[in-house]
């Protein structure tokens, strides 16, 4: 493959929710921005496998960056999600207590929240708690209610940020892995990738659990440890078992195993917390599955054992300080880190992006060659990529789309009612879906109770058709994850030819 050499003003490394949000906010300026993502789609790391909670912000202390960022970002989500068409629902959260000791702890958390001016925090007694959550453990006595907490689809947020960045002129390069940073005289010059070299003024490191690897390429010391969390997702049938995000009393290390509805109406439970070494380890374990089920049952005892439709793991990117690292590199000019973005990282996203914009402005002040100028026209809003499920109760409006294209009347995924029109849209979005998983994240095809058993073959067919490739080339998520191995009869003919030649 011929490697290209090209130029950019800013390269953002990492296509998770932080990287895409940064690219989108920087796209307000007249800059050449390239976002690099090593996987076949955006949001393939921590952004796709987390609790999907926008926290109220009462947990962390205001002495920490993460505490301040969370509080600052919380109120921004309504506008961002409306602009970008991302499902977001401010349903409120309840931390559940069982004893007088727990009550003391809840009061402490409330005080910490109020110190940060978080509105509406309220201690609930047994009856109020039961009024809010009828299925809660009968032994639960107290609750801390936070009305400003919400639920969101984290990967859809990242993808929508990515789409918006592209609509505003940024470029997203998928399947592009950073292999080195070229530094001369303590100043960053270029980014080396598997697809060539990109000369650039600035690099933003938003590489998630791999942020320390990128930092090292930029001559910085950093240690990001992955901490795994496993989840169970339940059938939509059980989505209404709870109405709020329910937490146990938090420990120093984590907010504990929560039970929450998702924006799409499923029920999500998890995560546990497990230190691991391998940053590519997204496997689930028997012990982990049992642990989260047991943990969740402490809050909702009647959780159905056989209601699980999928289980998954995600990695928290933990810096030893326990806080976010957001700032310029100590050793290399032109390098900005956003690292250690563990919980409440998702909840802090817009604030982190704003902070990076400030840092870039600061950099521009000190560099005459690097000019920052706002674009005259910035598209705040993403176009609508309609989903039938959002029109369930206004079907006449869905007719409008069917009249435009009857692919919108052709149901491909029966569990989630996803039409061919929605799948084709996903493939044609600014950051296009090119894999089966990418289609799933944009449309939900295959994320229902049959887990793609029925729609899998149809989705493969549509991908092959739209991308003009053979079905054999269609992958689950890039790399060697091809869905199919050979054409029918191919293997047996090869085998027979081999036997003939052998004789």
């Amino acid at each position, binding site marked *: 493959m011929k490697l290209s050499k090209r130029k950019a003003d800013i390269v953002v490394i990492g296509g998770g929710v932080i990287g895409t949000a940064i690219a989108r906010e920087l796209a307000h300026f007249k800059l050449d921005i390239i976002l690099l993502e090593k996987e076949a789609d955006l949001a393939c790391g921590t952004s796709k496998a987390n609790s999907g909670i926008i926290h109220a912000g009462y947990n962390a202390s205001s002495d920490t960056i993460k505490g301040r960022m969370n509080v600052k970002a919380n109120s921004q989500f309504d506008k961002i999600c409306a602009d970008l068409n991302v499902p977001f629902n401010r349903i409120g959260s309840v931390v559940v207590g069982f004893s007088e000791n727990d009550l003391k702890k809840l009061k402490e958390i409330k005080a910490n929240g109020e110190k940060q001016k978080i509105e509406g925090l309220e201690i609930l007694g047994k009856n109020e708690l039961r009024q809010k959550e009828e299925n809660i453990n009968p032994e639960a006595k107290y609750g801390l209610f936070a009305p400003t907490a919400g639920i969101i689809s984290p990967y859809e947020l990242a993808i929508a940020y990515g789409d918006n960045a592209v609509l505003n002129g940024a470029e997203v390069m998928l399947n592009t892995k950073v292999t080195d940073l070229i530094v001369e005289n303590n100043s960053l010059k270029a980014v080396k990738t598997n697809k060539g070299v990109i000369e650039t003024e600035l690099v933003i490191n938003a590489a998630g659990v791999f942020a320390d690897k990128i930092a090292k390429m930029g001559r910085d010391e950093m240690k990001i440890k992955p901490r795994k969390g496993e989840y169970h997702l339940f059938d939509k049938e059980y989505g209404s078992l709870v109405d709020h995000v329910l937490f146990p009393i938090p420990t120093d290390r984590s907010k504990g195993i929560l039970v929450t509805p998702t924006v799409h109406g499923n029920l999500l439970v998890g995560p546990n917390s497990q230190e691991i070494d391998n940053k590519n380890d997204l496997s689930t374990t028997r012990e982990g599955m049992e642990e989260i089920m047991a943990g969740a049952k402490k809050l909702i005892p009647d959780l159905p054992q056989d209601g699980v439709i999928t*289980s998954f793991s995600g990695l928290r990117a933990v810096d030893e300080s326990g806080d976010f690292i957001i700032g310029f590199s100590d050793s290399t000019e032109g390098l900005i880190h956003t690292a250690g973005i563990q919980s409440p990282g998702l909840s802090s996203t817009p604030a982190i992006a704003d902070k990076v914009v400030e840092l870039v402005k600061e950099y521009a002040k000190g560099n005459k060659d690097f000019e920052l100028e706002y674009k005259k026209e910035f598209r705040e809003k993403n176009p609508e990529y309609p989903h039938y499920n959002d029109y369930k109760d206004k079907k006449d409006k869905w007719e409008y789309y069917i009249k435009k294209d009857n692919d919108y009347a052709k149901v491909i995924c029966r569990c989630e009612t996803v039409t061919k029109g929605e799948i084709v849209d996903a493939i044609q979005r600014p950051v296009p879906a090119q894999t089966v998983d990418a289609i799933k994240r944009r449309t939900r095809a295959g994320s229902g109770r049959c887990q793609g058993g029925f729609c899998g073959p149809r989705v493969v067919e549509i991908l092959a058709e739209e991308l003009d490739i053979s079905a054999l080339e269609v992958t689950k998520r890039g790399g060697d994850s091809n869905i199919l191995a050979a054409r029918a009869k191919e293997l*047996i003919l090869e085998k027979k030819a081999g036997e003939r030649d052998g004789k």
Partner: protein
Amino acid sequence: MESKYQLAVIGGGPAGMAAALKAREKGIEEIIVLERDEYLGGILPQCIHNGFGLEYFNKELTGPEYAERFIGDLKESEIEVQDETMVIEINDKKEITALSKDKGIMKIKAEAVFLAMGCRERTRENIKIPGDRLAGVLTAGTAQRYTNIEGFVPGKEVVILGSGDIGLIMARRMKLEGAEVKAVLELLPYSNGLIRNQVQCLADYDIPLKLNHTITRIEGKDRVERVKVAEVDDNLDPIPETEEWIGCDTVLLSVGLIPENELTKGMGIDLNPVTGGAEVNEMRETKVPGVFAGGNVLHVHDLVDWVTEEAEIAASGIADYLKNERVKKENSLNLKAGDNLNYVLPNKIEYKDHNRNFVKLFMRVKKPMEEVEVHFINKGKTILKYNKDFALPGEMLTLNLPEKIIDENMKNIKISIKKQDKEDLYEK
């Protein structure tokens, strides 16, 4: 605009097709069949192996051939068929909403509804096999569709979990395609597949069947590279010392089928936890008057022939319902599963004898047993007894309950399977 029909059939698989044809034969004129796929026949077109039709047609057919007989008749009958039409919702007034490729959003009001949505396969996620989430893990039915309809083989080195019929059929199919089938694993001490499939699909091709085994972990980078396999103890828990890795690029799962009853539940019809389907009377009518169900949506069948027969029973009931020709019994007679029986269908007999000599019962056995007696018990007494050489969970037990032994006052009959007691004769 809402169109009106006497009968709306939800699903154009074997159950739906047979019901539509039978209802027409019984004089029902306004029928519509709503099919979500591009073709009729349900799962039959992908079942290219033979073994279909022995009971119903007295002839051995392939799946597509079996389907073709009904598709042809359906065409001739000029019954309205809407394909690529997905029913989204049915309410208890029998108002149906569907998304149709040709007609957009369809609204249909039916006097009677026949539910024939079939079933779906249990997934890796349902049975919670831990490990990496990779390409190369799929249900046997999906693999069958890829191979037989789409023309692609999903893998080269295969391990199959579950020895139900689809698992067995796909073991042979993959072998015939040139793939290596390393093993078929079965959690239970016996296979749930038909005996003929155990012989013709595994034994004839030297594919090892490992009973009391399961997969405890799946690993790989992008695609499956290996599975950890373990023997299980009497509680079906894996025995750690027995764990070993098997290299493969594909895992096919044949770990059970679940009736697709989302629409049924939407109508407020509760499901029976054992069958996964609605509870029905002898006409296969659910608790909502005029709503009938049959085929795999009601309970999972092993032979399509029984599906056809069940759908025809339902269609006769639908015709009687639509013509208002039914006479309710004073007491409904409940049929209950007793010893070594998982379930019996229908759940109850509600209407008076209407030109019928017997009610055919469909039953599923719990554990394999040889030389059995099937007892029909009323008030503690056996009122009818059948002898059978064997009773197997993998083969549906069908027996007739003759009309003449049903007493008008009878409220319950329990059916139990017992070992034939050879001594019995001498003791009495």
